[in-house]
């Protein structure tokens, strides 16, 4: 056996003082298996040691919340005993090293988190970020990630209903792959990971354990260097077929009453799943590693404990229910083994070939895990740019629009979502490419909307504002399909937390998220943190991804963004000040990359959103789209392209110039389509509620037209928008 010393501990990703703390706690030197267990539990990915104290501030409560952060996933009430289980999780590091498997197992992992709680997955989403399109690795990474997400989700038969794809050079060396799953469960039949009772059998089910993924969680807690290719063996390999069987078998077992607690083996595999179950139940656990089904020969206790082989679950059963449970797993051809029992020792005790190979008090691994109060610095709000008249003088509206529509972050992403099965399960009523994906709650009149958003550019310019903005954008996407926003899950992707600037970005983004989610009653119920997204000293822009869900009590009243009828009015809800700093226009047309992000006014955000929902509930809105990247003209272009219907814009009133008006990225705005006969009624309601609105134009013809200025045929603007990604991927 390997002699453990400080050097070996450091190779396991532990710091020198952390190793000393382990020796002090144990009052001896750990053996190699124990060191492996400590390193797995104490790394950033599992222990949240840099983030824990800040995450406590998140707004996590609300009448709709059944389960907040701390479980496998969050759970919210959607009435009539139905509940939605959902969570987003990162799989960034593995996806950069091995895009197909990294992304596939990311999808597999998040789906397990959801069905572990007794829910049948009903929708998948994802948020993926890549380096600059010009970077040599981007194309292959994008292809691999999309194939991986599709390969896994399509096989399981869960529709991928929405997502987001961004390009920015800050991800050249660290791509982001965040996967989200929603599941449906009866709120009285939710399963938790907390073990209870002693001498209860501990069951291992699913795939066999192999040597793949050993130290995956530690890798996810480290920055990358030149030797990154050597890490390939630490990427897990996914088998969606086995996951599908595991899903069906678990749900079949859950229909009975034999499960006390259940936990999937995700990051740090058997180690973290067994310790979490025991820790939450304030119990001990005893495992005989000889009984763990292994795929490879001569696996050591160390390897068995640290393997991250996929598609495995740990279950604590009621005594005497083993045969009943085994029958179900036999039917689905899955491994089933009783590998241990719960105890009252409050220790984790591991046996191998009749010898005790490890014994550690569970407290040491969970509660006593390090927690750091890392130093951080506050970001200053950048100075506003004063754009001169000269800068706009030679610009043409149409030319600017066309350029913006082929910006990689705006151009159509059909090439991606055509590769995801988004219609299986027969309840997808809004497909990818809209404001949010929407699936019906099977067999009811209800539907659930979901989207994922991030705004790294804004967060980079000013983390506090950016954090607020991304929550608001998610909220707006729910409103825009006519759903009442319910709750969010967050995936916090940041650089190295040991650097004060990065830590500051994290702290302030979390602050912004908290402020907005509290104000909007849009609580965070689950999520994860991914630090160390950094290669050779270059970190990513701060990228919190927010996955939001909303409820439609009558799916027939869902709103879409396709323009409906000639002669209808288009209104912009919310005030347009013409904020160009940090906009797509400023970067693409004016080559200006500095300045503050658009200000977020939570009061207006809420008023405007509630007012749109109110109009929708009165059946006064035909179409709705939120105004985001690229401003008003980009928003209506997308609406026109989707429907094939043109827009005649009214001449501008007010002080802002047309570029500021049409491309400004002010927050809290929507474009809505109103029938002429409803116009007066709508105007009166908006005036009464003191909601600012502009009359933008009419649905008319097949062109986007502004008198004495532009006359762009839809086919003309559509071409570049639709083609950009397809052509990029072919080249």
């Amino acid at each position: 056996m390997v002699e453990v010393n400080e050097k070996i501990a450091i190779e396991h990703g532990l710091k020198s003082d952390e190793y000393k703390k382990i020796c002090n706690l144990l009052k001896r030197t750990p053996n190699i298996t124990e060191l492996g267990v400590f390193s797995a539990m104490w790394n950033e990915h599992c222990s949240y040691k840099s983030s824990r104290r800040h995450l406590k501030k998140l707004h996590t409560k609300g009448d709709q919340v059944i389960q907040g952060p701390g479980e496998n996933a969050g759970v919210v009430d959607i009435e009539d005993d139905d509940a939605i289980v959902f969570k987003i999780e990162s799989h960034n590091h593995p996806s950069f090293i091995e895009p197909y498997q990294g992304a596939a197992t990311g999808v597999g992992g998040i789906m397990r988190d959801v069905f572990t709680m007794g829910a049948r997955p009903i929708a998948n989403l994802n948020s993926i970020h890549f380096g600059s399109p010009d970077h040599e690795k981007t194309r292959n990474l994008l292809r691999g990630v999309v194939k991986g997400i599709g390969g896994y989700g399509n096989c399981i038969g869960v529709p991928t209903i929405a997502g987001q794809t961004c390009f920015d050079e800050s991800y050249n060396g660290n791509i982001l792959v965040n996967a989200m799953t929603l599941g449906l469960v009866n709120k009285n039949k939710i399963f938790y990971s907390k073990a209870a009772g002693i001498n209860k059998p501990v069951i291992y089910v699913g795939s066999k354990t192999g040597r793949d993924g050993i130290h995956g969680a530690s890798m996810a807690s480290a920055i990358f260097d030149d030797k990154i290719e050597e890490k390939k063996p630490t990427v897990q390999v996914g088998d969606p077929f086995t996951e599908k069987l595991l899903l069906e078998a678990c749900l079949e077992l859950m229909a009975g009453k034999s499960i006390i607690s259940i936990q999937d083996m995700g990051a740090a595999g058997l180690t973290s799943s067994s310790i979490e179950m025991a820790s939450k139940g304030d119990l001990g656990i005893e495992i005989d590693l000889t009984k763990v089904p292994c795929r490879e020969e001569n696996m050591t206790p160390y390897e068995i404990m640290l393997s991250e082989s996929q598609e495995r679950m740990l279950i604590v059963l009621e005594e005497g229910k083993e045969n009943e449970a085994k029958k179900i797993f036999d039917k689905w051809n899955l491994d089933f083994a009783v590998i241990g029992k719960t105890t009252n020792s409050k220790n984790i005790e591991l046996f191998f070939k009749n010898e005790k190979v490890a014994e550690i008090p569970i407290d040491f691994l969970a509660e006593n895990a390090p927690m750091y109060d890392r130093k951080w610095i506050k970001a200053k709000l950048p100075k506003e740019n004063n754009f001169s008249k000269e800068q706009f003088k030679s610009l043409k509206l149409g030319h600017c629009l066309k350029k913006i529509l082929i910006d990689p972050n705006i151009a159509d992403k059909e090439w991606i979502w055509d590769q995801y099965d988004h219609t299986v399960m027969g309840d997808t009523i809004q497909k990818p490419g809209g404001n949010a994906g929407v699936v019906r709650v099977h067999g009811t009149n209800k539907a659930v909307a979901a989207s994922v958003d991030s705004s790294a550019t804004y967060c980079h310019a000013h983390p506090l504002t950016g954090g607020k903005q991304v929550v608001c954008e998610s909220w707006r996407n729910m409103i825009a399909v006519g759903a009442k926003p319910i709750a969010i899950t967050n995936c916090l992707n940041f650089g190295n937390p040991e650097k004060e600037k990065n830590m500051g970005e994290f702290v302030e983004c979390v602050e912004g998220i908290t402020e907005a989610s509290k104000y909007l009653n849009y609580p965070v119920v689950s999520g994860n943190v991914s630090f160390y997204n950094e290669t050779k000293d270059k970190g990513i822009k701060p990228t919190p991804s927010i996955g939001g869900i909303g409820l439609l009590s009558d799916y027939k009243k869902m709103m879409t963004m396709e323009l409906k009828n000639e002669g209808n009015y288009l209104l912009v809800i919310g005030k347009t000040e013409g904020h160009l700093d940090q906009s797509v226009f400023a970067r693409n047309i004016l080559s200006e990359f500095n300045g503050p992000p658009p200000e977020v006014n939570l009061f207006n955000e809420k008023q405007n959103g509630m007012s749109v929902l109110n109009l929708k509930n009165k059946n006064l809105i035909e179409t709705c789209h939120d105004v985001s990247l690229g401003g008003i003209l980009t928003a209506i272009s997308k609406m026109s392209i989707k429907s094939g219907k043109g827009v005649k814009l009214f001449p501008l009133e007010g002080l802002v110039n047309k570029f500021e008006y049409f491309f400004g990225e002010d927050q809290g705005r929507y474009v809505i389509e109103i029938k002429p006969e409803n116009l007066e009624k709508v105007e009166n309601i908006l005036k009464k509620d003191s909601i600012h609105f502009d009359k933008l134009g009419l649905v008319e013809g097949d062109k986007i037209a502004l008198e004495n200025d532009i006359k762009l045929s839809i086919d003309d603007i559509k071409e570049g928008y639709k083609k950009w990604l397809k052509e990029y991927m072919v080249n």
Partner: protein
Amino acid sequence: MKSSVIIFPGSNCDRDMDVALKKFGFENQMIWHNDAKIPKSDLIVLPGGFSYGDYLRCGSIAGKSRIIKSVIDFANSGGLVLGICNGFQILTETGLLPGILQQNKYLNFICKNVFVKIKNKENKYFKKIKKEVLELHIAHNEGNYFCSNDELKSIEDNGQIAVTYCDHKGNDDEKNNPNGALKNIAGIFNKDKNILGMMPHPERMIDPFLSGEDGSLFFENLIESL
């Protein structure tokens, strides 16, 4: 009318098919792949999905499963057998239908609405459908139909081509071929036209709030013709 949907490990359109069949009046039952016998049925459906993970080759392990012998016997005695997507792949693997389904021409999974032209209405599957062109939905990675020249001649001579990919006007040319399938073939019959395999999923098009409603026409005709 009684229908049976076979569930293989890895099937994932079994529930959708069950919902669709019941919606249009079938009394449907779900049959486990490891069962020896299929209860009395007027129609057997092999649903879409990834049976046995589609390992080895799409549909190949399912083509050797325990239940499949009963399916073959039922088909050979003239019973109606419908295979959708993975079910089509399984039917070619059993030899009940000629040809094979290769990986899509551009090597990507494709999920989108397509139009198909009905090529033969002299059968129970399309007899009473008034439209010539249906809008259906595909979701597959291996839908690129291929067969030998002799087989092609034989299926053409026997009117075995059921549906072909086309545009909304019914032009079934190469421009409207999503996956590279030979002659734009989206579905074929056996000689007696009691077995139909097709890649598009009618069960996903049975409601105005979904991708479309032409799938309803398919099921309405089916229950009426039986």
